[in-house]
């Protein structure tokens, strides 16, 4: 149960007038209507990747240009109408959950790649281009866009910017913020501002850095200039199976201490190994308590050299088995189970919550042990699949959404895990964002005056709190409204 703000009755009462006004700003075009008001057609927009929460919006607009986004914002600002931006709706934290009195701005029609420049190693794309779409546009020439969230087939670059998304390869290539050069940004007043461009670093304040990861609190991004990188000559994976989570955690430490930075270092615990193996038949070791997937890059000789060293390190920790891919196909087989992990857990449990805290990697054994105890206490299974090199956990808590008691327990279990992450020196969210899901946990990580400081920055961009309100910041102290319970 999450509280949403009471809708503004005067806005609800003006619904038809608002729809009519929006239609004059976004008239129907070649790609269909620009404004959706029909309740049945609003249905697909009522939730995002966190499907436990649902709320149909007042209207959905589907702009095709930056100017249209600016016009909608100008109108909504003048008429005090709340805004919820939406990319592909893959947020796992409810970042795109609509408001009853809010207009959803869907960016999916802004899906053009505007420029690719290999000499300057950049691409200019509209916000609705998918993450994989950027890499696909440059892959034939040997380039790629580095951040690769699991949802990369669907998620859009605008949403990646708003969440500062990561992925399995950020250990080497960094998160979204590292890979941005510029943004076209529309303020709540409808002013269009170009931040950065093809050059590195800002001379004044780092607006680009502040806006990245701001979850739609500060404005709307319509175009993005990303860095593209030349892909390595090749990559290959190995798999190590170990007798306990503690031992696998020690292996991670030993690898980093050796000076080798693998391009990916993924950890799976016993429940995750079993779920993935049942789903993908990847040949995972079912007798292991923990498994690591380690990937290196380079030409064949370099891969052999690094994998040889990694094998030696793993061998010091009494592994149950070690499997080094000899070919690209064998590498794909090792990744197959991991890539299908969320689907695999979906097969053994009707529903699951995917948590996203980060911890210092040294705390891994302790946190996994505590999580096991919580799992028993709550009577809910949990599978762990995560980016071990950077400590970003993804515990999947399995529950039954048709059973309110089960859902309540899953939410409480998830909150306990995130509190534990903060307790050991980590944070609530490594890459999924706070959204609506973790909004009320913000006081676990921040002191009241620290939250107040963040609110003041929000107010500097959005004085009326019209942009994606009821997300990120707890409702208490939110100047925009008094709370009201919504199931």
């Amino acid at each position: 149960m999450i509280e949403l703000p009471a809708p503004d009755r005067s806005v609800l009462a003006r619904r038809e007038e608002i729809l009519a006004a929006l239609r004059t700003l976004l008239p129907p075009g070649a790609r269909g209507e620009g404004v959706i008001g029909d309740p049945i057609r609003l249905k697909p927009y009522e939730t995002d990747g966190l499907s436990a929460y649902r709320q149909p919006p007042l209207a959905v607009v589907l702009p095709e240009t930056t100017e249209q986004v600016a016009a909608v914002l100008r109108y909504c600002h003048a008429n005090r109408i709340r805004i919820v931006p939406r990319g592909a709706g893959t947020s796992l934290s409810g970042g795109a959950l609509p408001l009853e009195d809010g207009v959803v701005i869907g960016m999916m029609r802004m899906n053009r790649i505007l420029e690719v420049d290999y000499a300057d190693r950049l691409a200019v794309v509209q916000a609705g281009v998918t993450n994989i779409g950027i890499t696909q546009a440059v892959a034939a020439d040997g380039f790629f866009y580095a951040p690769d969230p699991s949802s990369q087939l669907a998620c859009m670059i605008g949403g990646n910017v708003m969440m500062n998304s990561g992925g399995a390869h950020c250990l080497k290539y960094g998160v979204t913020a590292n890979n941005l050069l510029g943004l076209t940004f529309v303020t709540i007043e409808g002013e269009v501002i170009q931040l950065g461009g093809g050059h590195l670093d800002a001379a004044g304040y780092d607006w680009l850095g502040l806006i990245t990861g701001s979850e739609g609190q500060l404005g709307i991004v319509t175009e993005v200039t990303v860095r593209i990188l030349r892909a390595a000559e090749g990559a290959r994976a190995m798999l190590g199976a170990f007798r306990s989570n503690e031992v696998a955690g020690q292996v991670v430490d030993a690898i980093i201490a050796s000076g080798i930075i693998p391009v990916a270092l993924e950890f799976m615990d016993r429940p995750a190994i079993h779920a993935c193996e049942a789903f993908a038949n990847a040949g995972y070791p079912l007798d292991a308590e923990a498994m690591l997937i380690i990937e290196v890059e380079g030409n064949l000789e370099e891969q052999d050299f690094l994998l040889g060293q990694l094998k030696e390190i793993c061998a010091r920790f009494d592994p149950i088995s070690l499997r080094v891919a000899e070919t690209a196909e064998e590498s794909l087989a090792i990744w197959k189970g991991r890539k299908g992990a969320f689907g695999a857990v979906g097969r053994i449990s009707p529903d699951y919550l995917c948590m996203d805290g980060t911890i210092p990697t040294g705390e891994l054994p302790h946190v996994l042990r505590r999580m096991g105890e919580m799992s028993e206490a709550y009577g809910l299974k949990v599978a762990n699949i995560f980016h071990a090199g950077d400590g970003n956990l993804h515990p999947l808590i399995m529950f039954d959404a048709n059973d309110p008691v089960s859902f309540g327990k899953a939410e409480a279990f998830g909150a306990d895990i995130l509190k534990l992450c903060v307790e050991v020196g980590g944070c609530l969210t490594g890459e999924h964002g706070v959204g609506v899901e973790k909004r009320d946990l913000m006081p676990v990580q921040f002191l009241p005056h620290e939250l107040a400081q963040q609110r003041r920055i929000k107010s500097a961009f959005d004085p009326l709190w019209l942009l994606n309100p009821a997300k990120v910041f707890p409702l208490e102290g939110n100047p925009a409204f008094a709370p009201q319970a919504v199931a």
Partner: protein
Amino acid sequence: MNGVMVPADEAGVVEAVRQAVADHAPLAVEGNGTKRGMLRPVQAARGLSTSGLRGITLYKPAEMVLAARAGTPIPEIEAALAEHGQMLIGEPPDFSALFGTSLPATLGGIVATNLTGPRRIASSGAVRDQVLGVRAVTGHAELVRSGGRVHKDVTGLDLRKLLAGSHGTLGVLTEITLKVLPRPGGALTLAVAVETLEQAVAALSAGLGSPFGVSGAAVLPDGEPALGLHGPTALLRLEDVAEFLPHRSAALRGVLAGFGGVTLLEGEASGMLWRAVRDARLLLGGTAGTEEAVWRLSVRPKAGPGVAAALRAAFQARLLLDWGGGLVWVAGPATAAAHEAVVWAAQAAGGTFTLFRAPDSLRASVAVLPEEPAPLAAIGARVKAAMDPGGVLNPGRMRAGG
């Protein structure tokens, strides 16, 4: 200015800011003051130095994390990292030659200015990307934290990014946690003799667009005769596992062969060269005086040669290009006319500029950073008021009246 306060702890910084707010007496905030000559002169009643906040507070080599108090000198941190075969990713520059100072830069100063060395061009990003967490005292005289000590943290608005590069105008950094990395086993440089800056930047682009891991890409417009490099020279650095370098070097040489003769520099010759690029010492050409102005422009790499040509046409310019050709260092006469030429060149190239060093008379009278469009300037003023409502932190440092 009536003296400089040097608090020994965070509580002392909070108290100094509280007093400044109460007295309406602005503070000139700095670490060791090594970059005092950057941007505009600060008009302040008192100085507040973080140089008393010293020491490494956390170092976990196996987690690639180091935290230190803001006043900790960079060499002290680098020495601690070297003991474990690790390094600061951002290659923080040492501008003591540029500014004619003798003290080392502090961690707080490097983060507050977000100054990154040649490795900026690699995928590891700018100093601000390596900042995992900060503790800072705002103009509300409150200690706030943003981020922490883990590698991925997107919780809440990213005040780390806002504070990094804000030159002490939004908060006084007191402690910073950084991502660090193992030092590569080997490094070498390929120097390509080219005829024009256009060719030099094309050579850098070819190298950076290759899969061999180029981690430094600079242009010496007039070479470096002391190292046997004559005329325009493109420099490309490889850093990786030592065993990989012979193959990579040969493969990269193949990529560069069409651009000109290639010279291999290894060991200390290579290391020294990149430190000289990093510190912009190659720009100074032996003149230690600080009467000349120095600007730093950042543009798209392809635009670098055009900017260089425009500046050379406008005044007696000495140049150094880094970051694949996109970072243009230029030294020239400290005149308003030369400054106008820089402003125009950066704008024409769609990039940005900083008046990096100049006599007070010039840096107090011109815009040392590009003007922001009105809607952004309005947001900037509100953000400044949100962080420092009394306007006591480094007033005028970045912009007149701000």
